[in-house]
């Protein structure tokens, strides 16, 4: 029971949120006083939003710290110590797939790409490509953690591939692709999938939780970039024909 009571100790998180949002609020006060000079009513409305942001951030961070991260780590430890760590590969694939399909930012991106291609590439195709791309890279990340492959062996060729495609892709696709890196690294991937791989790396013999546990988010960020660049290649080669 005492472990569940941990949820109630929010003092530390409250302090953290104050530090997190303080500078941003000061920046706005500066702008309000010197440049914007918005009417008081408007400021009051914005203030309500800021209060909501703070409360939301406290709940979110506390839920992640006390609930999600320890669970993800525990699950990783169980799987890593089970003698069948390769189970993590399909599990990673599954997590990657469901998390990306559901992610609202991914859907927005899909429509953006459809527009950039003047409707030649359907949003649904993009959504599926992206989700499979992310799922594949989470699975790859798990392979990396289990077998102890250094992260730059995957990330550097990935970025070099993206840079090589820059030459053949048109500017709009390039900009969208590199901006897209962030769409799949939502709060869920960051918290849960990261904790999972850290958990595995901390129990498996010969694995270092820092060296092998981290690096997954980097791969998840790379997947949409490569997916959109590849789509861009298809589009521009189709246009030329």
């Amino acid at each position, binding site marked *: 029971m005492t472990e*569940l009571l941990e949820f109630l100790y929010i003092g530390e998180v409250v302090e953290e949120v104050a530090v997190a949002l303080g500078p941003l609020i000061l920046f706005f006060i500066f702008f309000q006083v010197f440049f914007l000079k918005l009417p008081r009513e408007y400021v009051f409305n914005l203030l309500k939003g800021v209060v909501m942001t703070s409360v939301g951030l406290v709940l979110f961070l506390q839920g992640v710290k006390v609930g999600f991260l320890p*669970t993800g780590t525990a699950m990783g430890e169980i799987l890593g110590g089970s003698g069948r760590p390769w189970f993590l590969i399909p599990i990673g694939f599954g997590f990657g797939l469901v998390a990306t399909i559901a992610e609202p930012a991914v859907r927005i991106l899909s429509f953006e790409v459809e527009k950039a291609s003047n409707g030649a590439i359907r949003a649904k195709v993009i959504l599926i490509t992206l989700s499979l791309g992310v799922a594949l890279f989470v699975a790859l990340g798990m392979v990396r953690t289990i077998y102890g492959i250094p992260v730059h062996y995957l990330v550097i060729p990935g970025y070099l591939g993206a840079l090589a495609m820059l030459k053949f892709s048109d500017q709009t696709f390039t900009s969208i692709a590199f901006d897209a890196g962030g769409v799949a690294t939502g709060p869920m991937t960051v918290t849960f999938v990261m904790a999972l791989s850290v958990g595995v790396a901390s129990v498996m013999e010969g694995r270092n939780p820092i060296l092998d546990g981290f690096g997954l988010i980097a791969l998840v960020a790379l997947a949409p970039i490569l997916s959109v660049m590849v789509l861009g290649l298809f589009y521009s080669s189709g246009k030329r024909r």
Partner: protein
Amino acid sequence: MKGYRENLSEALQAVLPITLVVMILQFSMVSMPAVVFIRFLLGALMVMAGLSLFLHGVKTGLLPLGELVGAEMPKRASFAFMLLLAFILGFVVTVAEPDVRVLAHQVDVVSGGEINRNILILTVALGVGFFVALAMLRIIVGIPIAYLLAGGYVLVIILSFFTHPDFVPIAFDAGGVTTGPVTVPFILALGVGTASVLGGRSSITDGFGLVGLASIGPVIGVMILGVVFG
């Protein structure tokens, strides 16, 4: 609470799929101790509530402000002053980014406090600030984005040979977490605002690409931190 429902459904869509997969696993392949599982469910509820409030607050409070500032800044300030402001904006939004905090917390815990969370957040924020300023400079001067992206990543590759090995995965992860729900809309608003005020340039091509550039900053920052540590 107009529009809250939409943000609630957005939060549910983000949290529920993962929760379902964990529940299925709990009752099939990986049975965790009951206390851990209950903690997960309580955590999931809190995260859902927190995320929906947070998103709603960002959209009603922070974003309109971000757009105002993004549109106002280029009109009022000189170029040099604007670059400074872009740097500060990049810095303060990163400090407020939840994903950055979660990564820093996890790194702090796993390294046993050796890589302090505040130092990590500070480094990441400085990296974003610097690269947002650089990205603004790009829009003003009109350098093609491909040059900056290529230059940035080449620098990353070179640094990865000199930095302490522990910092390589953390650095790459830091690049991924900066693109979160606070940073992205702010930086996009700033980029589109600047590009549209400058006129003549295409606001689409110039405004985009800012986020991609901004996420290189922390990778370089954390790698430099690793050189200092190592």
